[in-house]
């Protein structure tokens, strides 16, 4: 049987169970039936709200990834190639890493206030650690013989970095980018739930306060869909940028 059929069959059974549970609950505010939720999805999709909030969250995610990458990729490459630098910087990384981005929310809320700054900071912080560690590991795993060969052939440090180290570190870097997105996406939603005037997390908490449960569920589903699509896009980017990399089968 085709996977699509299996998928649809499973989801149909799930919808039926959900419907039965909704009938038993008898309170659409606590648990609306699938039809109500479907109508709510159409409503928020038609008036553009769904895409608008999702776009804001996704843009924030992308902006903070860019910030995180701009800081950690050069730092990671340097730390992966210089033992001294790694020994100097590593303690700071190990002190900060266990403090989750989410634990920064109250302090960051005080510094940035409610707005774009808070979710972007939290997300960039969260994504920075997997990215940094992935880049360091990637740079360290470069075959020493390739570096030596390049040096023998007269390449200078910058050229070796650009032509040998970066391409070799790229697969590991891209996998860690996906890890960063997975943990950062949760952080964005949490940050928006607490302190942002828009975005998916904000929409969820707004409609909860209005007690419009079908729309709450619609936006929760959108969190899943956007997260999934973003990961899919990154996987495509991986395949396209590093076609030579062996699929590590990394599942997040």
């Amino acid at each position, binding site marked *: 049987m085709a996977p699509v059929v299996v998928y649809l069959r499973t989801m149909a059974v799930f919808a039926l169970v959900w419907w039965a549970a909704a009938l038993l609950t008898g309170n659409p505010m606590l648990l609306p039936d699938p039809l109500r939720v479907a109508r709510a999805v159409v409503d928020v999709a038609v008036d553009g709200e769904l895409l608008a909030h999702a776009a804001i969250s996704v843009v924030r995610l992308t902006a903070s990834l860019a910030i995180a990458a701009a800081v950690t990729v050069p730092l990671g490459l340097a730390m992966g190639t210089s033992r001294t630098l790694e020994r100097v910087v590593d303690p700071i990384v190990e*002190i900060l890493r266990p*403090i989750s981005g989410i634990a920064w929310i109250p302090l960051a809320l005080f510094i940035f206030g409610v707005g774009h700054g808070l979710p972007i900071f939290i997300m960039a912080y969260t994504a920075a650690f997997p990215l940094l560690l992935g880049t360091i590991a990637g740079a360290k795993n470069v075959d020493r013989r390739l570096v030596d060969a390049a040096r023998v052939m007269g390449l200078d440090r910058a050229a070796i970095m650009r032509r040998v180290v970066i391409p070799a570190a790229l697969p590991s870097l891209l996998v860690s980018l996906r890890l960063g997105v997975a943990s950062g996406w949760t952080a964005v*939603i949490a940050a928006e739930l607490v*302190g942002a005037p828009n975005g998916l997390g904000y929409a969820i908490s707004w409609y909860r306060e209005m007690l419009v449960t079908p729309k709450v569920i619609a936006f929760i589903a959108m969190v*899943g869909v956007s997260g999934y699509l973003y990961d899919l896009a990154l996987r495509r980017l991986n395949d396209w940028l590093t076609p030579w990399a062996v699929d590590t089968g990394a599942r997040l």
Partner: protein
Amino acid sequence: MGGLLIPLALPAVLVASWQALGEAFGGVRMPLPSRVVVEGVALFASGELPSAMLQSLGRVFSGFLIAAVLAIPLGILMGTVRVVERNLDPLVESFRPVAAIALLPMAILWLGTGTPAAVMLVAYAAFFPILVNTIAGAKSVDRNLVNAAATMGLAPRAILRNVILPGAVPQIAVGLRVGLGIAWTAIVAAELAVGAKSGGGGSGGIGQMMFVFYAYSIELSRIVVCMAAVGVVSLTLDWLVRRGTRRLLKWKAT
């Protein structure tokens, strides 16, 4: 001596300049290292911090336990019986990308702003890493071993206990470790957001405590103390899981 000097250099410089810059330019509220230490000792001595932390940890362990009890048997089943995996996989893949914290509003709606809602979120957050890794672990068991055991006349249940479970344990251990880490992050997020959304109606826990310091008493140094506590707990939990699972994995050369 030189072995310790280099790793300690940067943290020492950063803390010293934080203190110096804070004293020079910061206001009364500026969290300085010295103030953080004083507040940390006070919060610890008064019992506020330990009791908030115990409350959060209790929630983490309950949620984590629920997740493990559900995810490990299900994962073994999905990893060994192809039909079950094929039919349940769509459900797993549909719910896995939904960040646990996004479910918070539903949890509050169903269970209120207290412990049950927090436990539900933790269980949800920890469930998927444990499940996915258990499935992978059960699948990674050498088919030849399973066939050999079957040939030697072992009943399916004995095969499960003596071949598949031991083979899957290393990967399950990875799932538990990842799951517990995520559970701890989720509890802080849940308590924070509950604190923010319930207008200070106390649900307790370290996350709630941080939100109160932010929104009501504005004590930034105390927020930093809580952040440090969150970090220490997360390191400790990770260490405990690694120690606990290492005993299970003694037979396996790493």
